[in-house]
């Protein structure tokens, strides 16, 4: 396997982009990444997108997006793994470069979610759950994560306030990210008094519906060095699946797929979790971040709530989690999220994260998750 480097990143402002279409959002972002990398060609492209069919009535994205980027006949693939589609796209791009199949690969994620009503968006997102065993019985993602939250609170004593602290922390970080959908702070009281969605989760516990894209350019590390680029190496990549239905899990307070994917990625990188200085994780709901920090080993099992309360995961804590603002404040265009996490870690490792820069960060990790943890993709990045 060849060493793989990320040499370009692209991202534009996320939000309700009513005046832009999926193809426009993608193309603007991809061009930014190509410019940033300073390359004059791409050999292949992989795009993560969860549900363009349900959101905008468009499939066959590989070809369509290659066309609108002006890059036909380049090989192009669209990959899907629900909300971890972006992370999976990055992994496929990584494999393509590492294997020697392609040299310069554009990895992007995109989702256009606001062309449909809230009900239609909830339905589209719900297809990431087990339709026969969950969806058809009326379960939606807020409902599933609410059950996970209740179980975690019951088993470990995680408090309602600790859930709120995740949102407060991520909005604090997001207030320093000009590309975030909601770049402002919230208070614990605001979270606790926001509209109830699925008890105990309130609207400020939930990541939003977002239009957005993110892009990264990968190439062999040797080529990057010859181009005299700042080399951010993808040192490890891990992926794992779990049962798609929550009811089939041994323990709904534990995200096994993240644990396994992280172990693989860290083993490939030859690192331990303590060796890393920042983490971009999948906080689709506040409880998700608490459970993910436990699965990654940042917090002990059952102590994810306490970790956020004690400031362990804040921007200046020992393990800064979601310096970008996370899905909560930055937004969650589902297929783009995994790639945007990589964009944030790469910017941080280059020292280009502005006000939210984690000082002296040399290594970082991204964790992107589909459904309630039916799939997880973890990557480890290192600045050379």
């Amino acid at each position: 396997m060849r060493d793989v480097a990320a040499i370009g990143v692209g991202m534009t402002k996320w939000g309700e982009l009513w005046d832009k279409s999926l193809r426009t959002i993608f193309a603007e972002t991809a061009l930014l990444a190509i410019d940033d990398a300073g390359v004059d060609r791409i050999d292949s492209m992989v795009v993560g997108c969860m549900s363009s069919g349900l959101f905008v009535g468009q499939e066959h994205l590989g070809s369509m997006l290659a066309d609108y980027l002006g890059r036909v006949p380049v090989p192009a693939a669209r990959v899907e793994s629900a909300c971890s589609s972006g992370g999976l796209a990055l992994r496929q791009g990584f494999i393509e470069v590492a294997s020697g199949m392609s040299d310069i690969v554009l990895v992007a994620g995109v989702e256009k979610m606001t062309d449909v009503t809230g009900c239609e968006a909830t339905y589209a997102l719900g297809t990431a759950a087990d339709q026969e065993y969950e969806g058809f019985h009326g379960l939606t993602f807020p409902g599933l994560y609410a059950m996970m939250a209740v179980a975690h609170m019951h088993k470990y004593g995680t408090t309602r306030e600790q859930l709120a602290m995740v949102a407060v922390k991520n909005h604090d970080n997001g207030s320093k990210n000009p590309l975030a959908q909601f770049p402002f702070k919230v208070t614990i009281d605001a979270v606790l008094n926001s509209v109830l969605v699925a008890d105990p989760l309130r609207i400020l516990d939930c990541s939003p519906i977002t239009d957005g894209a993110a892009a990264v350019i990968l190439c062999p590390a040797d080529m990057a060095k010859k181009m005299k680029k700042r080399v951010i190496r993808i040192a490890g990549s891990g992926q794992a699946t779990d049962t798609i239905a929550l009811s089939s899990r041994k323990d709904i307070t534990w995200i096994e797929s993240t644990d396994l994917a992280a172990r693989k990625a860290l083993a490939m990188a030859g690192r331990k979790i303590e060796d890393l200085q920042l983490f971009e994780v999948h906080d689709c709901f506040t409880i998700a971040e608490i459970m993910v920090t436990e699965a990654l080993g940042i917090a002990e099992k059952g102590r994810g709530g306490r970790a956020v309360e004690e400031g362990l995961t804040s921007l200046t804590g020992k393990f800064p989690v979601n310096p970008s603002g996370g899905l909560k404040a930055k937004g969650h265009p589902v297929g783009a999220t995994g790639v945007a996490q990589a964009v944030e870690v790469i910017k941080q490792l280059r020292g280009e994260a502005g006000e939210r820069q984690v000082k002296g960060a040399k290594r970082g990790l991204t964790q992107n998750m589909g459904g309630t943890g039916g799939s997880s993709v973890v990557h480890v990045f290192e600045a050379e």
Partner: protein
Amino acid sequence: MTGIVGYGAYIPRNRIKVEEIAKVWGADAPSYKRGLMLEEKSVPSPDQDTISMSVEASKRALKRAGIDPREIGAVYVGSESHPYAVKPSGTVLAEAIDATPDVHTADLEFACKAGTEGMFVALSLVQAGAVKYGLAVGADTSQGAPGDALEYSAAAGAAAFIFGADGIVAESVATYSYTTDTPDFWRREYQYYPQHGGRFTGDPAYFKHIMGAARGLMARAKMKPGDFDYVVFHQPNGKFPLRVGEMLGFTKKQIEPGWLVPKLGNTYSGSSPLGLTATLDIAKPGQMILVVSYGSGAGSDAFIFKVTKRIDEVRDLAPKTRDLLDDHKNYLEYGVYAKYRRKIRKAE
């Protein structure tokens, strides 16, 4: 000089509270009340419709105008709930107030700004010298789909204005319209309830058009927010008019007299016109009023009025809008409300 010579309002006595609707749908009433800044809304009785409410409001406008109805050369009814798809509301109104047959009549429809459209046209005809007086009414018995967010706000009411060139109570200083094709809210033929684009009805729709119209008109008139004593915006909920006012640089004090929505709901075509009637009820001679409507689809009509001395002579000739809103209220339970709004299907 042209402007308003008489105005009148009508609000049905029935009300339903946000809590009563939320209870039926298992919704969280406090968050609706906080989020929409709504407490209750007016509900028409089973025998009331856009036409009957238009007649009530117009009779009151005539009392204040003190004119012979046969001198009214134009009658316009703006509504999205005309009782007939084919057959005018305006002819019934014109007949009821004794303005027929020497009169031009039209029904207008432009979501929530059909009322101000009629005002725009009636005023223009007066200014052109084509008619002596023109009557314009904004009236609606709005329908929101059961359980939809709109059900908490869709209300009923009417406001009527007679325009002319003598006996003016509020002089028209300037007008302006701002229109684009923006599909934020619609109802196709044969559909019973309207559909809307959720959050899309906010920034690119309501806020863009109201701000476009308000700024456009103030620029033309070389005026700024501080030059006005009162401002009335379309009121789909309590929050939007306050927020757009703040964005434009108006104070809550300027907005509040015409801000009826927390206790009235959204009367659609009657919304900003009713706000104007409540403002005229308390305005003093020489004061300046800015009115900006909003209709989905989308557009805004904006008017600047300067109140004259005659306001003191006419305001007590007909019921005041705040009194209609606050007095003799009859609270309905959801079941009766559902019957009144014909949401219950009976045997053929």
